[in-house]
């Protein structure tokens, strides 16, 4: 005798509540999808890549957020610019960013982009800074979002 014990079912039909529940939840999901069609995703957080982790997105630049980002950036800003960011060896001071670029190689960038030259310089991945001698300055564009860069510059300008 071959043992064959299929599982019986009490009812084969589909109760109306199950159809109703499914349609209702799909409808809610559809509405949520339609209200989230436009926007921009943040940069992808690649596993293993160093970074400061998520911060609040949107809103005005926050110097406090910028301070945390500067402290956690990889490589660390203080590693080259000194623990107090006042410069170290051939690496320039980050104090006085509010007064415009001090380094000679950034003068043109400062003239052409007086409002966001610092963001562009720290980012380093945009066409505006292409060809500029970075003198060992890393590109942070892959690590920070534009909002985060704004917060970093707001912090530097507050020093």
């Amino acid at each position, binding site marked *: 005798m071959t043992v064959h014990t299929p599982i019986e079912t009490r*009812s084969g039909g589909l109760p109306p509540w199950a159809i109703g529940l499914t349609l209702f939840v799909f409808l809610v999901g559809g509405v*949520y999808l339609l209200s989230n*069609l436009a926007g*921009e995703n943040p940069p992808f957080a690649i596993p*293993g890549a160093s970074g400061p982790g*998520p911060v*609040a997105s949107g809103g005005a630049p926050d110097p406090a957020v910028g301070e945390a980002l500067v402290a956690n950036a990889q490589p660390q800003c203080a590693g080259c610019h000194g623990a107090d960011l006042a410069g170290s060896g051939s690496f320039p001071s980050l104090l006085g960013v509010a007064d415009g670029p001090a380094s000679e190689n950034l003068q043109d960038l400062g003239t052409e982009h007086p409002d966001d030259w610092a963001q562009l310089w720290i980012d380093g991945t945009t066409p505006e800074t292409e060809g500029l001698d970075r003198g060992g300055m890393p590109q942070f564009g892959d690590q920070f979002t534009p909002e985060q860069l704004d917060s970093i510059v707001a912090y530097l300008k507050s020093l």
Partner: protein
Amino acid sequence: MTVNPKKLRPYDVPPKRRRSLIPGGPDSAATGFLVAAAVWLALATALGALAIGLRIISFEFSFGLGLFDLSLEFNQRRVDYAFVNATVYGWLTNAGFAAIAFMTPRLLGRRIVAEPVLNLGLAAWNLALAGGIAALYVFDLGPNAPLTAFPWLIDGGLATGALIVTGVFFATAGVALQSGYVSLWFAAVALLSLLGLVSLNAAIGLFDFFIGLPELMVALASAYIERAVLVMWLLGMAYATIHYVVPRATGQPLASAGIAMLSFLTWLVLAPFSGLGPLLEQSIPFAITSLGAVATMLLIVPAALAVVNLVQTLQGRWTLLFGPGTGAAAFAVVALAFLLAASLLEAIGALRSVHDLVGGTDWERGAFLWATYGTFTFGAFALAEHALPRILRRAWGGGLLSGAQLWLAFVGVTIAGLALMGGGMAEGSLLAEGTAADAIDAGVIGYRAAAFLGFGLVALAGLVMLVNLFLMYTSGEPAEYSVPGQAATAAAGH
């Protein structure tokens, strides 16, 4: 003529039965997969406790192996990756394969085709996995998520194991699958998904090794595979298992075939899209990731349908949960509770506003624990509780160890998951305020300590399962159950 049995000549003695190198008896593969799963569970829970411990006290070291400039590196990321792989590919996947090897012949009334081949699949999968976990401590992890971090050769071994299991399953089920029970449908899609995903991962690793692929592309593919393995393979097998175990353990028919089919169809449609949710990258259209997030939220539908259907199936048999011993039904009920809770949490976590707060924090690991050590683990416990006495023809030693296993795992995973999710919310809030990393670590250390203690209980539950299994094998009371494809040996059911 009378024969004196004490004077048998040598040729009257039947030759000793030779044991083949590769077992091929009925249920041998199911036994092998279940034993392998139990061993991986013990290892995975130990690694998990260590991984959480390393979040509290960071510690790392490395030393040269004296071979090809290779060095062994021990750090938090590598231990975390080993934990995830031992959990998903070790414990839960072996349990999933065991469920397939156990259920298929019983639901279809035919023996597994080529059981020795299935045992080869068991060997291929587990040898590759053991090598892969060792490799995690030696080779560069690259931009991969945990489940795709093995070297491509190891991925090839896993794909081979998955191919063998899938091939044997479809060769056994054949056309009967069309009219088969819903568990087999879930299992069929889940198996094909696993095969496709590990093969895709192996192919990406191969191309990356020989021609080099952009880091971002590898990372995005890795993120999709990581999510898809959880919602297509593990979730699919959890549905397959509980839809099998609950009617069997209660001895009652499934409440509704229609609801079961709707549950299957909604899962089938939504699960592949859920993998798009984690692809949060500037170059990916916003609508695509939104679609992934919505699919993740809507996975609450098949979960709710399955829970209602199986609770209705349990109606009138609630005493099974509170009687002496715990039984498969009790494990299945906990699995159902976690299924609903984890689906709800996943849905909440997929909301963009919530994800902005808790993405990348301990919340994600907490949600992972509730899914893997809640839903999937209790589903696998239910299967083991139901299947092992029928496979080994022995009864469980007693209710005490099973009860300890259930409560330790339940309390442990509840505490660990809640603590990590709470810590994740605190971590997200601190990050949003721009708090420095050291201050954040100090702020969440209490949550992580609670999670460590909770997961320690889960590790203890893993050990209890191993001890329970050992005692059953060595000193369990004989119990007769019928074997598919052979004459029924007892009136006991499946």
